[in-house]
């Protein structure tokens, strides 16, 4: 079973994510130490908390994380975790992991923020991650910021809420979703299963 290490920023609920990952065939653990990360087949950046607070917590392992990513370890960022894959955020100070180029900005004032609830994810670039999912499919969102990748080629799916934004990005070993697959019922579980199959390949 591939080992998935869920990065712990010290806030929020990682229980569902751990539960969901074990259901799709990962052996998940939660932590932040280098010793733990050394064993990781996959690094998961979960989606709870605030950009600056999370970056602060990551400081001690940041360099180690970016080295892992450069050496090809699969990274999967969810919600805030996806935003951390990029360089900057309007939510606060601090530099993200910058594994993808671009920044995060706030959703427009024309809509209620946070974007909270189930919205459609429309596939723009078919990948194995979308196998047996309808197009579009419904997933659960809970966020106030969203990333704008410099390279539009990394966008695999989009969602519209006041503005059209990237809800799935992927480049080589780096994957990010703005929605929470672990809170998106059967559809979310299917997405995670596709991810698991992709890793095992």
């Amino acid at each position, binding site marked *: 079973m591939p080992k998935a290490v869920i990065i712990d920023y010290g806030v929020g609920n*990682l*229980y569902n994510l751990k*539960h969901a990952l074990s259901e799709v065939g990962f052996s998940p653990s939660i932590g932040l130490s280098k010793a733990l990360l050394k064993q990781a087949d996959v690094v998961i950046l979960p989606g*709870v908390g605030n950009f600056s607070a999370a970056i602060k917590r990551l400081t001690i392992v940041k360099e180690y994380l970016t080295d892992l990513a450069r050496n090809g370890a699969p990274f999967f960022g969810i919600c805030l975790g996806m935003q951390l894959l990029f360089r900057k955020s309007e939510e606060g100070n601090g530099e993200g992991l910058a594994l993808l180029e671009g920044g995060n900005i706030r959703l427009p*004032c024309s809509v*209620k923020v946070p974007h909270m*609830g189930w919205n459609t994810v429309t596939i723009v670039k078919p990948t194995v991650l979308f196998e047996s999912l309808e197009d579009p499919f419904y997933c659960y969102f809970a*966020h106030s910021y969203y990333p704008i990748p410099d390279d539009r080629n990394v966008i695999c799916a989009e969602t519209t*809420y006041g503005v059209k934004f990237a809800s799935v990005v992927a480049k080589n070993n780096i994957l990010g979703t703005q929605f929470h697959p672990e809170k998106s019922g059967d559809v979310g579980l299917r997405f995670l299963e596709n991810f698991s199959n992709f890793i095992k390949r």
Partner: protein
Amino acid sequence: MPLTKRIIPCLDVDHGKVVKGVHFLNLKDAGDPAELAKRYSEEGADELVFLDITASSEKRKILKDVVKRVASEIDIPFTVGGGIRSLSDARTTLCGGADKVSINTAAVEQPSLITKLSESFGRQCVVVAIDAKRRYEEKRGKITVETKEGRCWFEVYTYGGRRPTGLDAIQWAAKVEQLGAGEILLTSMDRDGTEKGFDLELTRSVSENVNIPVIASGGAGCPEHFLEVLSIGKADAALAASIFHYNKYTIQFIKRFLRARGVEVRL
């Protein structure tokens, strides 16, 4: 397609059992929280709310093991409230499997807690619950609204509907948004458990006055009530308890009814 409207079943839990009353009183047993949670998750609930309704008045902590048991049965977002008075209470609840925490009494008594929670866990994690009751007498400085039953303002109550605060619910809603709340769970005490329909005037007044999502609660009795509160009431989500607990309508039935009338829901 836009963001869908959410249908949210609510588990009011009293010492480990789901209960339901009328106007916050005369509580009746409605089943096991984990069993109901599982059923609702499978029936297409968009989220689940769990309120430990006696934690605050009994000044005790929330029932951790029950929260965990419920969390392990579902794969949809899960909000937990009742007796959360500090950052550390919130952290314990979140680590026990909740995705969001709901605060009510503590928010009124120490508004700075809203900001602290929001800064630590992110705005999307912080639900402020407001229990409101109509007041038909005029009072200076309160926002009055024209209703079928006469002109009134809405007073905020704490301690599970036991204590009036003198606060105006519409003004309080705007204040909690400013302090960092990510969502408002708005319950009409006048309608709670009556199955006579949501308080549309209350919901609409609050929803129009804030720029964060509003969950309407209290009074759901039939599918038309959901339609009204999500359209006329301008709610972003509708919460109900008794009609789901007692199998009067399934969540699927309500959602199909809504979609047939042009409301976007997840099916």
